[in-house]
């Protein structure tokens, strides 16, 4: 097999198009996920839609629709319950996401007998990407672009200083709710590609890598989009070569890139920090 041969298969080309389209939404919103500390929420929404996907597979319904409905119900329930408890956000999130996994497993193994499909749902599949996935990813990208341009200032202001933003008259609740909604919807658009367990590989890790390398918001967003596209492409290639689910390979590639960036950055930071000292001496 020559190096580029995997990309000659039509199903791989479709997956590649899916990843490139997803990179817009994942990179832009991923930057906000990292800046606003929404990693656990993203993780939870991915897990939360798992029973929806199992249900869709068992009943022959469109998977994106079921994942969307169940994922949004989950995200809404999460917000509602965590606000009611005031401060127990991480407990409620952890329990609800484990609950979603448990319900999904019971449905898959004992109601629908979905068998090995469960692994496909958990870690993604190259073959599962269809035309509607591409449309969904494209729409998610456009919405993310529009929302980032329109609401970026509000997200930035509440992110740095929620109390100050409120005093300045920015009503912080609506833009924030919209950010959570957008993250949930676009994460669900990514499920067929990377699976329910590894949404963070697209939405958290590349943006965190870009965050290591730049302090400017524009550069962070551009870098995150490019990293999602590049790591997704590399992960897909690896996934075809070693016959593994793409979610797993993309997660591994983006984790290794993050590790390399962090390792490279550490000596640079040390040199920068020590420069004044060496000049003075």
């Amino acid at each position: 097999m020559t190096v580029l041969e995997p990309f000659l298969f039509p199903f791989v080309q479709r997956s590649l198009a899916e990843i490139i389209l997803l990179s817009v939404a994942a990179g832009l919103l991923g930057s906000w996920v990292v800046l606003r500390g929404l990693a656990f929420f993203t993780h939870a929404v991915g897990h939360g839609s798992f029973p929806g996907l199992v249900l869709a597979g068992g009943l022959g319904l469109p998977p994106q629709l079921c994942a969307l409905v169940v994922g949004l119900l989950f995200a809404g329930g999460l917000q509602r319950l965590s606000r009611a408890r005031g401060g127990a956000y991480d407990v409620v999130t952890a329990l609800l996401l484990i609950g979603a996994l448990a319900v999904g497993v019971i449905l898959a193994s004992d109601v629908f007998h979905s068998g090995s499909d469960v692994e496909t749902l958990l870690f993604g599949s190259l073959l599962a990407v269809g035309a509607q996935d591409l449309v969904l990813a494209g729409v998610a990208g456009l919405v993310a672009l529009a929302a980032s341009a329109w609401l970026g200032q509000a997200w930035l202001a509440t992110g740095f200083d929620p109390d100050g933003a409120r005093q300045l008259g920015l009503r912080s609740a609506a833009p924030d709710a919209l950010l959570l909604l957008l993250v949930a919807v676009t994460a669900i658009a990514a499920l067929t590609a990377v699976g329910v367990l590894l949404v963070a590989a697209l939405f958290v890790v590349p943006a965190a890598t870009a965050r290591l390398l730049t302090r400017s918001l524009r550069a962070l967003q551009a870098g995150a989009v490019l990293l999602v596209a590049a790591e997704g492409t590399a992960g897909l290639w690896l996934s075809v070569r070693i016959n593994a689910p793409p979610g797993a390979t993309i997660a591994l590639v983006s984790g290794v890139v993050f590790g390399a960036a962090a390792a490279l950055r550490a000596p640079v930071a040390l040199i920068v920090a020590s420069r004044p000292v060496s000049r003075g001496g």
Partner: protein
Amino acid sequence: MSPADLVGVLVEPFTEPIVQRAAAGVVLLGIVGGLAGCWVVLYGLSYAAESLAHGSLPGLVVAVAAGLPLLIGTSGGLLVAAAAIALVARVPALGRDTAVSIVISTMLGLGALLALAPSTPRGLAALLFGDVLGLSTADLAVGVVVAALLAVLLAVFHGRLLAVGFDRETAARLGVRPGLVELLLLVLLGLALVVVVPALGNLLAAAILIGPAATARLVTRRVPAMLAVAVLLAVGSGLAGLDASYQLSTASGATIAATILVVYLLALGGVMLRRRSAPSAGPGGPAVR
């Protein structure tokens, strides 16, 4: 059906030797999970508990492929995951949640790759979702030792855990070193997970740590009472889940996790209803901290 018949039906699964062994395992899980879980909840470590359990997947898979006991794989995987999270969390500009998320998605990806390699024998599903009915005598023996060790350590360090958990700064002035106590708690969490992960799987393990403790926290504010309630709830919902999984022939680990969640949601609903009917907090009022 008379009450006696009902009891007969409910007790019937426990006459099977394989269910008796699983029940012994569940009791151990309940003790370990309930005790360690209270401190996990009090210290706000729920995300860490959930993720560390996820992060042990590559270790588990390597142990299965190499024919080593799951115990060694779990502890190895936990150590690597904990060290990686500690390292990434030190990177400035990234929060702890982000660090946890990066490490866990990488570990899960690696674990899935290893598990789906042709040379790996056991199914990935059993590692992800556990196998309560497949616990060996060695697993149970390890469970007894870990439960005893955990109980002793928690009793010895109870005062220090309490002091740091409620007021870090005062505790530091009183001569307790908060950093060391937090490290100790992570070690205890790791110990508990070593017992829980092989039984409930690395995706569901955190249920028995967080669920009963969070429910106990809703019912009582006193720590000793919370520990007792959490252990009782963990053992009780574990056995009820095991019974239900036998009666309905559903996956045992998932049924136990679902039972724990249902108990928590019922308690939460009860608390919310009581707050709403109380005259001081009307509907739409500010959340009570």
